[in-house]
């Protein structure tokens, strides 16, 4: 039910099993069970707190990419936008003395603005957003570095840094519910508003949508702006966790975010070709990736092999998903 386009063919128990979200949820349950048995430290309140914090951040990063994937485009500049916005927010808080909430709003608005630029460039130039955001990831990051002289803001107000320490029930970071609320909002947006539906339609078949009176270009710009805003939000969450706004927090020109950004939606069943979105899948996808990373780090394989395991698991997940959809397709055409 979390898939925006219902009617995945087979209903009932089989149909449910064939759905991506259920598969992911099962996989997560299995992984948690394994990690918890192998390493008791996995379920310690301390680890759960750390895990839920990273999970929340990665979910927002994944959602930020998801909203652009829906249009059939992509946003390589999520990381750059996130960092650039946070540096602005950090400057506002620390240097300009703007209160925390307005500063955060400013950062998110700035992220939306950078995303809006991406959208406008994509639409106006008529080239794929891959190229546009490839250029702007470099452009935004370069501008940010020039403006900040690559220096961090590490004397952020207490009330902001405390957001990163927020915890519920002793072990759930405030970041996780925040991400879930954002997810819920996006689900409602894509399933219960006309603009959200139009974005999906335009992503699935721009010509048909255009001829049906949808302003396709506007849907693209909106999606990019939304992606920018979410990128900025993820940046703020990360800065609150780190207790500082760092130019390096998304890696070289923001590329450090790309893997989680693509992993979550792709694992969750959002099509790279656009038009189909799964918010729940993205959330679960992000959860799975963080659980695997966290669990692997705690096992004895050593931190240096974690990335390779992640890659292998991603590959396996993508292949499994493919096999699942091929089988589902076959069953339908026989029926």
């Amino acid at each position, binding site marked *: 039910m979390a898939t925006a386009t219902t009617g995945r063919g087979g209903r009932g128990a089989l149909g449910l099993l064939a759905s991506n979200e259920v598969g992911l949820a099962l996989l997560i349950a299995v992984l948690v069970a394994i990690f918890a048995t192998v390493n008791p430290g996995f379920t310690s309140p301390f680890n759960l707190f750390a895990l839920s914090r990273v999970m929340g951040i990665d979910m927002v990063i994944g959602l930020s990419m998801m909203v652009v994937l829906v249009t059939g485009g992509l946003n390589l500049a999520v990381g750059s936008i996130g960092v650039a916005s946070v540096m602005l927010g950090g400057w506002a808080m620390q240097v300009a003395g703007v209160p925390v909430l307005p500063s955060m709003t400013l950062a998110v608005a700035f992220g939306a603005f950078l995303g809006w630029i991406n959208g406008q460039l994509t639409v106006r130039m008529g080239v794929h957003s891959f190229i546009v955001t490839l250029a702007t990831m470099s*452009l935004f990051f*370069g501008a940010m570095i*020039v403006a900040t002289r690559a220096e961090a803001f590490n004397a952020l107000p207490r009330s902001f840094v405390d957001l990163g320490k927020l915890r519920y029930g002793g072990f759930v970071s405030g970041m996780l519910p925040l991400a879930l609320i954002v997810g819920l909002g996006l689900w409602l947006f894509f399933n219960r508003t006309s603009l959200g539906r139009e974005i999906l339609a335009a992503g699935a078949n721009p010509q048909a949508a255009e001829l049906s009176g949808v302003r396709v270009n506007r849907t693209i710009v909106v999606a990019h702006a939304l992606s920018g805003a979410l990128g900025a939000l993820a940046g703020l969450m990360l800065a609150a966790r780190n207790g500082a706004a760092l130019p390096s927090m998304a890696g070289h020109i923001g590329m450090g975010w790309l893997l989680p950004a693509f992993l979550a939606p792709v694992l969750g069943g959002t099509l790279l070709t656009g038009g189909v979105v799964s918010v729940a899948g993205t959330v679960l996808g992000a959860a799975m990736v963080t659980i695997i990373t966290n669990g692997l780090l705690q096992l004895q394989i050593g931190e240096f092999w974690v990335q390779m395991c992640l890659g292998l698991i991603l*590959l396996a997940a993508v292949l499994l998903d493919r096999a699942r959809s091929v089988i589902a397709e076959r069953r339908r055409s026989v029926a």
Partner: protein
Amino acid sequence: MLKGIWGSDWFGLFVVALVAGTGLALFQPAFLSPFNLYVLLISFSLWALVAMAQMVIIAIGQMNLSVGAIGGLVAISFAGSMEVWGLPVPAAILLGLAIAALCGLLNGVMTHVTGISAFVITLATLSIFKGLNIGITEAQPFYGVPDVVKAFGNARFEGLPHMLIVPVVAIILIWLLFNRMVLGRQMLALGANRHAAELSGIRVGRVVVIAHVISAVLAAMAGMLAVARLQLGQPTIGDDWLILSFAAPVIGGAVLAGGHISVIGTCLGVVIVTLINNALVLLGIDPFFVQLFLGGLILIAVGLNRWRERRLAPA
């Protein structure tokens, strides 16, 4: 004939490169010094191979995000096999190329057999190859690179580095591939219209796999040159290749959807990027501006290309 050159993808770029070069030479005499030319050509050597590696995949209408990861993995395998196992240089080179061929094979076979987009597959393999690299090296460089390799990395004749020979040969071969060989033409046909290529009896799977292998081998050459240049097997080799690998072919007029690339244009794209880098250094401009310029340059190049396409398109 003249009209052909005018209408070609690369004429505008050629003028831009020429003007930029002349301008630099006039304002900064140091630009033409043999040492500066040498530095310039060294980075051209590396970038040209990286750009070609991506261009081959763009030609078939796909993307290869793992170019840098393959380059890095080969680089550390090359250096590591010589340091740890004491392999002779030629054997280490062969090992590097073989590893690349395997990586390419994996990318190609997976994309073709599963039908999953190359973007997703190479995103996954990027992580695997890079993960292998980090796992093997534990993020520490291999320092024991033999002197022959180091010497090759430093050798030059006036302004010409010896290692320039590698990209020059590669560029000529790739040019021949796409302009004169059946395989290359089939790659372009496949990139332009996969269905039509299939109907024309082209063995699509085979062509896709070969393209990925070629791409990986080019990335491997870049990786090994980087070892020779840096004089050590640095695990971070390849980390910063992604943007340039797309920037140069796209500046050179490649169509990202596939079916059209320009070898000369791509090389000129590399030249322009190298010149800009060099100019920023020579003119003492903050190196942080490099990113800004590169981003702006891609946008301008793509914008110009679109504009030209629209004007040339039959009304």
